[in-house]
């Protein structure tokens, strides 16, 4: 060994005790995180199981096909609330989706313009507004001016709640589309609108649709905004309204108007009302309503997921 080489001094040695300590810590932490992961599943499973248990007994064909019976009479269903939820959600989607997507396109394309910044800020604030306040706003805006509660007012209140979800998710999804796709289209001479419509939106469609469904699911589960707008209507029967409309020879527009100009019920609203009543049969029906509501939301979610997966599998070939 040459004298110029310094002796190598070792500071780190292998210690059996240190190794064992690390191994035990690792096992402990693995166990803890695993346990918490399992615990996170508990609420959902518990809720689903409990709702099925309590609500299952109310579920029969009549529950889906009949209107409520007067208190004291057995049977009857919540057809009015199922129709109501579908109509309210459809109205909310109609009011919120087209402007939401268009606003998102603008905000994504011009993120640093004053309007783009304002849109982002406004949607952030709007998503934090309590839903009951949105209901009050709907009351002041439509119910007060029209002089009556209506499905229209309810749909609008739900639309306001959906809007920020739609704008933000759509904007994020559009921003995720690679810049090169846009350039590829523009380099072929495509105008900006055509590029957005036939390249950018299809490329972002999976995320956008997921966002839309999240928004619709949120809207269909809301109660508070409907209290001051849709109010509730146990005698609402869309089939009858359409039938009468057709029999009296009204046009489609005026039938549509008849469907949305009166107060309407929805599943969460019915659940809320039934659950407060002192009659056991109403309480059971409230659980039944909860079960339907959950089934609808779950089915939408799963259906959307499957659809999105199939679509992206097809695109990736």
């Amino acid at each position, binding site marked *: 060994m040459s004298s110029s080489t310094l002796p190598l001094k070792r500071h780190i040695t292998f210690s059996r005790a240190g190794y064992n300590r690390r191994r035990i810590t690792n096992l402990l932490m693995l166990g803890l995180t695993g346990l918490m992961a399992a615990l996170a599943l508990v609420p959902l499973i518990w809720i689903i199981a409990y709702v099925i248990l309590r609500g299952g007994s109310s579920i029969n064909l009549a529950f889906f096909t009949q209107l409520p019976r007067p208190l004291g009479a057995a049977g009857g269903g919540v057809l009015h609330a199922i129709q109501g939820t579908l109509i309210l959600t459809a109205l909310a989607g109609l009011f919120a989706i087209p402007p939401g997507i268009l606003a998102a396109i603008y905000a994504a394309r011009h993120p640093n313009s004053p309007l783009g910044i304002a849109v982002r800020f406004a949607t952030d604030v709007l998503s934090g507004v309590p839903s009951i306040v949105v209901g009050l706003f709907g009351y002041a805006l439509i119910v007060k001016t029209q002089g009556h509660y209506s499905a229209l007012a309810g749909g609008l209140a739900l639309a306001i709640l959906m809007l920020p979800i739609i704008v933000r998710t759509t904007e994020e999804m559009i921003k995720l589309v690679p810049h090169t796709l846009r350039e590829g289209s*523009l380099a*072929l001479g*495509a105008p900006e609108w055509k590029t957005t419509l036939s390249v950018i939106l*299809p*490329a972002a469609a999976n995320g956008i649709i997921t966002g839309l469904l999240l928004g619709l699911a949120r809207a269909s589960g809301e109660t508070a905004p409907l209290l001051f707008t849709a109010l509730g209507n146990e005698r609402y029967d869309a089939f009858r309204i359409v039938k009468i409309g057709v029999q009296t020879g009204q046009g489609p527009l005026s039938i549509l108007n008849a469907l949305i100009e009166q107060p309407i019920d929805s599943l969460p609203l019915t659940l809320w009302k039934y659950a407060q009543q002192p009659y056991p049969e109403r309480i059971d029906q409230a659980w039944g309503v909860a079960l339907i509501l959950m089934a609808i939301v779950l089915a939408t979610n799963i259906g959307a997921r499957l659809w999105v997966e199939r679509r992206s599998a097809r*695109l990736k070939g």
Partner: protein
Amino acid sequence: MTLQIMNGELNLEKDGLAPMNLPTKASIDMVLADLEMKMEIRDLSVFYGEFRALAGVSLKIPSQKITAIIGPSGCGKSTLLRSLNRMNDLTSNTRTEGEVCLDEQNIYAQGVDVVDVRRRVGMVFQRPNPFPKSIYDNVAYGPRLYGVRRRSELDEIIENSLRQAALWDEVKDKLHQSGLALSGGQQQRLCIARALAVEPEAILMDEPASALDPVATLRIEELMQNLVEHYTIVIVTHNMQQAARVSDFTGMMMMRDDRAGELIEFDRTDLIFTRPKDKRTEDYVTGRFG
């Protein structure tokens, strides 16, 4: 007449340069004088906001030849290329001075239709960017933009474009599968087919093979050699062997002290790589660039 070049031999006759049949000392102007020009860039400056990215570049792009632009990163190669079909317009705050003439018509003049410019001057990008659509719809996208609707007509355009891009045999049985399912090299040829489908006169290629493996790169280069019979090609590349292999003419760009890019030399490719006039070009092409 053969010339020793880098680590390979460039056979001028085989590579189609021989017809010019000029002594190597002939000035580039004399060479160009015999050729038809597709594009002519006159004193082109491009500004991004306050920053000057190009400092008065003048360059002639001969018809049905491959012109390569080489130079170190950040020297403005891509900026120059993107100003040839006005893609720079898309970057906000861009200002262009000077002229880019396409068949004697300045594409930056008032009243020029950008859509028409981009149809006549197509572009292929660094990373393959097929649309998330089927192979068929990818190629049909351009023709449909210009109003081709008849199925038989579209079918014909698509077959021709894919054939020209040397992709037809590989995809003819799966035209309705997604373009994203293809390999990287196939995707890039799909993008070339897509550009060809709008019947351009010139094609700009921005490092078209830099994201591809050597085999796919070679196929793209072969493809360029075939395409140049009908199209004018301008290619930006970092790969000097590629420029030497495929191009007829080469422009060397450098960044000035103020970071604006300038064209320091333009000549026949064989001359750029064997007897460059500018010391900086010599340093760059021999790998001594610091």
